[in-house]
Each structure stands twice: as C-alpha cells, then as structure tokens.
C-alpha cells in the first residue's frame, strides 16, 4: 500500500516538473510566431499558434495533475530527476514536431519527430523536404530547437523558473550535465545561458558582416548569420538551405563558423574559468589537450589518405575541405563542405574510418557537443598509462595519479570505470546501428559512418539518411540520437521506471 502511494507521488512529481519544462519550451514558439508575422507568412503563423496552444494545454494539464505532490512537499529523488529529464525530451519531441507536420514539409510524423530529435540532440540530420522553400518561421524554429537543445531544456527551465524547481540538481544531472560553475545549480544554469547569449551577440554580428561582404542582402545576411550561429554554437549542423554550408561558397564564412563550433564544443566550465581570468586552463585542461591531439592526428591522417587517392587538385583545396569536415565531425557539428555522397565516392575507406573515430570521440563533456567526449577518452587513456606504470613500479610504492579538468582531480578506478562504461554504451549503440544498416543492404562503411554520426550527435551524412530509408532505421536513429545526447543513464532510468510500473500493474492484476 505504502509502495503504491510512493509510486503515485513519484508520478505526480514527474508530471509536475515535466509540465513546467513543456510550458517553458512551448513559450519559445512565440519567436517563430512573431517571425512569421514580421515576414507576413500566414500559414506558418497559424501552424505555430496551433502547436503552441496544444503544448500549453498539455503542459498546464501535467502541472495540474502533479500539483498535489508540491502541496504534500514530497522530496524529489534521483530517479525522478533522471526520468523527468528523459521524459520531457520525448514529450517535447512530439509536441515540437507538430509545426513541421502542419507545414507539409515532412512526409510523415516519424520524419517530423526525426528532425526535432535531430535538432534537440544537436545532431543536424534532416528529413525535411524542399528545404529551399521552407518559410523563415519554420527555419527559425529549426534553429531555435538546435540552440536550446545545445544548452539543454532543463537548463533553460531552471534559468527561468528557479523558485518552482526544487530538486533542480537531479534534473540537471539527468540531462547529461554535471559541471557546477557556481555553488547552486540554478546559478549555474543562468551562467550557461549568459555565456551562450554573449557568444550569440558576438557570433551573429561577425557572421552578419561576413554575410554582407560575400554578397548577401542585409536582412537575409542577418537571418543566415543567426541561423548559422545557432547551429555552430550548439554544434548542431542545421542550415537554412539544402546545400548546407556550401550554399555560401566562402572560405571566410566557413572559417568563422568553424571558430564558433570549436568554441561551442568546449566545456562550459572552461569558458567560465577563462572568463574568470584562469587562462592557464587552456593549456592544462585534459579535454583541450585530448581535442588538440586527436583533431591534429585525424586531420593529418585524412590529408595523407586523400593525397594518396589524389582527391583534391592542390594543397589549398585539400586543407580547406579536410580541416573543415574533420573538425566539423570531431566537434559533432555536422556542417558539410562537400556533398554527402562525396564521402562515400571519393574519400575512400581510410578517410571514412578516421571520420567514424572522430565522430564517436566528439567534443567536451558539459558542452553542446556529442560523442563519448574528450574527457572520457583522456581519463581512460591516462588510466591505461597509470596501470602500466603501476606494473613497472615496485609493489611498495604508492603513487597518487591526477588529471586536470578545471581543477586537479585524483584519477582512481571509479572514475576510470564510469568513463569506460559510458564509452562501451556508445560503442554498443554504434555497432547496433552499423549492423542494422548492413541488414537493410547498405555497405558496411556507409552504415558505420551514418551510425557514428547519429550516435555521436554529429549530423554528417554519407547519403543513407533520406526520407526513403526504412522506418525501422529512422526509429533506431531517433533512439540513438536520444541515447547519445542524454548519455544513456537517464534513458535507462526512464525504461526502468516504466518497466517497474508495468511489473507492479501485472502483479496487481494477477493478485485480483
């Protein structure tokens, strides 16, 4: 009896906070509504009004249902925090897909959900049809999704609703973030948004100027700058036109975007530390070291591989295409400065293999980037060195091994184990996606490339992701993006919670 009451309270807590998260994200739909109004796009405006109203209604109903938990002041447990984070992502994916569906630019609701999950998880793969004729309102929405996805929906809600959100840290961790910039988590959420907004102003301004200098009209240049900034900073990879970054035909535009997505892939903790005057962090931080080493090695290897195949006519062309695409893959951005099929047809197996590796490694922990993160790679690598050193030293010697991430931390077996577990989870998801691709008849290298891209939340495609691909693959890719972004644990908690409920319900039925 007590257990079922606890469970009921748990459901109410989850409903209450999920409702608030839905409400805050739904209120963001006013931005595309205003955009549509400004550009006199009446149909998209109505689409967003309908979607916004549905989201508001659901959000309010969820809050009302869960309000009793707030009155009875039940404490939020870790499992609730994890379930709220993962459940709100699913609910929001469905709600935010409504304007896509109403626009007529997606062939099915699954395709619409695919695009929203791709935006939220900052992946950047798209099944939207006829992108070159999409309204400015819908384009604004696509890029808002990827921008807030980069920061996190829970982080966004905590920024606006500090007082209402008790147990905030549990939800924050549930969304795959663990860095504490200031002593309380609500303050940390605000700092994350502060950092992002300052970069938004600077980045958009620079891209706007560059856009006008390459021949775009002022208003159009502003919109392109805003969209490309949102995609770059969140390491998303969406672009307003079907040619992605190739639409601009400009090395200057690509370079500015590249600087922004490298910055976006860095840990918010590093940004905050540098802003606090701790400049040495750039040199000492294990994630930056790891990123520099892996990206340098990857660029050299791909350049060597493509030089052997004579893919590019000269070094300038080779450097421009290779560095942009490798860094875009490594930071899990997914902007492509070559056609998707050129990876398959021209880069060869060696180039594809290197891209798969960097896509899986990804950017920094607690950043907008995906992948299993440089921090974990650094920790596991240092753990390996530590074990070798221990073997070589005498049994009596007791050494303490450390790594530097914002501050000096002790490298012990628990840290190494938890990092290794997450890496294994990523590899299992990647392998499953590769097997599924080959099952449906795609070549193994192409399947591995696309699977790494979805698992690492990258967004580069080799040509598999199209609206004509099998629905099972679309669904798997949606799940893989979701798992990769929330770093598995929250989703496992949600599945466990759901299965626990089903098990109890079955037991009750059998008893009666």
């Amino acid at each position, binding site marked *: 009896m007590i257990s079922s009451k606890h469970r009921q309270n748990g459901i109410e807590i989850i409903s209450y906070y999920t409702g608030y998260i839905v409400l805050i994200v739904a209120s963001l739909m006013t931005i595309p509504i205003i955009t549509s109004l400004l550009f006199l796009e009446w149909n998209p405006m109505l689409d967003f009004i*309908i979607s*916004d*109203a549905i989201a508001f209604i659901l959000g309010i109903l969820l809050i009302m249902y869960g309000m009793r938990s707030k*009155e009875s002041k039940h404490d939020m447990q870790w499992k609730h925090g994890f379930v709220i984070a993962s459940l709100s992502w699913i609910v929001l994916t469905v709600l935010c897909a409504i304007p896509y569906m109403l626009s007529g630019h997606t062939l099915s609701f699954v395709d619409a959900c695919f695009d929203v999950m791709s935006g939220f998880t900052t992946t950047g793969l798209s099944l939207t049809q006829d992108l*070159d004729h999409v309204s400015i309102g819908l384009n604004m929405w696509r890029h808002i999704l990827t921008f807030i996805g980069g920061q996190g929906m829970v982080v966004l809600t905590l920024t606006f609703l500090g007082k209402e959100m008790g147990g905030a840290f549990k939800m924050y961790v549930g969304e795959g973030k663990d860095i504490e910039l200031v002593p309380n988590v609500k303050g940390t959420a605000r700092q994350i948004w502060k950092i992002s907004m300052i970069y938004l102003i600077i980045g958009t301004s620079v891209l706007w100027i560059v856009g006008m200098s390459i021949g775009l009209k002022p208003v159009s240049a502003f919109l392109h700058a805003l969209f490309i900034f949102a995609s770059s900073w969140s390491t998303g990879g969406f672009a307003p036109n079907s040619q992605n970054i190739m639409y601009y035909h400009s090395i200057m535009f690509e370079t500015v975007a590249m600087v922004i997505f490298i910055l976006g892939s860095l840990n918010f903790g590093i940004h905050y530390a540098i802003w606090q005057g701790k400049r040495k962090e750039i040199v000492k931080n294990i994630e930056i070291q790891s990123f520099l080493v892996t990206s340098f090695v990857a660029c050299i290897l791909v350049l060597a591989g493509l030089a052997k195949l004579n893919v590019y006519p*000269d070094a300038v062309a080779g450097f421009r295409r290779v560095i942009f695409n490798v860094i875009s893959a490594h930071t899990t951005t997914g902007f492509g400065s070559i056609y998707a099929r050129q990876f398959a*047809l*021209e880069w060869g197996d060696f180039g594809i293999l290197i891209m798969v590796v960097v896509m899986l490694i990804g950017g920094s922990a607690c950043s907008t980037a995906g992948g299993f993160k440089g921090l974990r790679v650094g920790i596991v690598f240092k753990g390996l060195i530590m074990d070798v050193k221990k073997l070589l030293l005498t049994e009596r010697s007791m050494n303490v091994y450390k790594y530097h991430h914002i501050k000096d931390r002790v490298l012990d077996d628990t840290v190494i184990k938890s990092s290794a577990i997450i890496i294994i989870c990523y590899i299992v998801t990647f392998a499953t996606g590769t097997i599924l691709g080959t099952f449906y008849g795609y070549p193994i290298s192409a399947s591995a490339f696309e699977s790494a891209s979805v698992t690492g939340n990258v967004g580069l495609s080799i040509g598999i992701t199209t609206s004509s691909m099998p629905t099972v693959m679309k669904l798997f890719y949606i799940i893989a993006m979701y798992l990769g972004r929330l770093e598995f644990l929250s989703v496992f908690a949600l599945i466990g919670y759901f299965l626990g409920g089903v098990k109890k319900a079955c037991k009750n039925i059998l008893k009666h």
Partner: protein
Amino acid sequence: MQKYIKTLMWVLLFTFALTFKVNAQSLTDINDLIEKAKEYDGEDVTIQGEVIGESMKRGNYSWININDGTNAIGIWLDSDIAEGILSYGHYKSKGDTVKITGIFNRACKEHGGEADLHSSSFEIVKNGYEVKEQISPVKIIIAVILTLFALVLMLILVKVIKNRRL
C-alpha cells in the same frame, strides 16, 4: 510502290540527320554529376533547374545556386548575367527556371576544391512567379479554439497557484 519506298527512305534519312544534330545539348541531373563526378570532371555539361536563395556578387562574377529537384549546385557566372535573373526561389516565390551549360569541376582548383559549374551559356527557360498562400478557414477556427482553451486553462492554473500561496 517505288514512290512510297523512296518517300519513306527520305523521311528516315531526315529523321536520323535531325537526331544527330539535337544530341549536343542533353540535360544532366545534378545528382548524376555528383554520383559520376570523376566521369564528368572538366567536361561541358548542361543542367536545368530553379534558381534558389539569392545571388552573391563577387566582383565581375557571381555565385547563384540551382536546384533541379535531384540536388543543388553552385554556379559561377558573369555578374551581368546574374543581374538578369528576376525571381529567386524561396517560401514566397518560385525561382526562374534556367538552363546552364558550362564546365563541371569535381573539386574546383579556383574555388578551394568545391564541386561547382562554371557557366558559359545561360538561358531563362521559364520565369518564376510569386506563390500565393492559401489559408484554410478550418485552420483559423482550430487556432482560435485551441488558443482560447489554452488561455482559460492558464487562468485557472494562475488562480490555483495564487490560492495555494495564500
């Protein structure tokens, strides 16, 4: 009978002769260019598609982007010609349909390894037009009803929260 055979032979001769003359300007899909890039690299090709977005002037030359429904590609052409394009494709308009002949580059040396097409001949096949929005009255009614319902619920929620605080 001989007359008929002669006439038939003349007809066939003319038919084949005309066929040989037309062969030079067959259209290529943009997707085909990418799929068989090595085959087409450095060759003269003709594509036909809609001009999308806007032109980007870079001195005497400009970039425009063409989408033929299979894919899109950048075209490098004389700025004076680009100025002749009146309609560009976006949400509110269908762009001019143009036929372009030029050299396809798989990895253009002049443009940092980009796959592009340097235009040598340009023709507007069909003028673009403004796309007028058709607004469904049902959509308006649904939007109004849902918004009113959401507002009522919002007011109830605010009231409940206020009562709880008292």
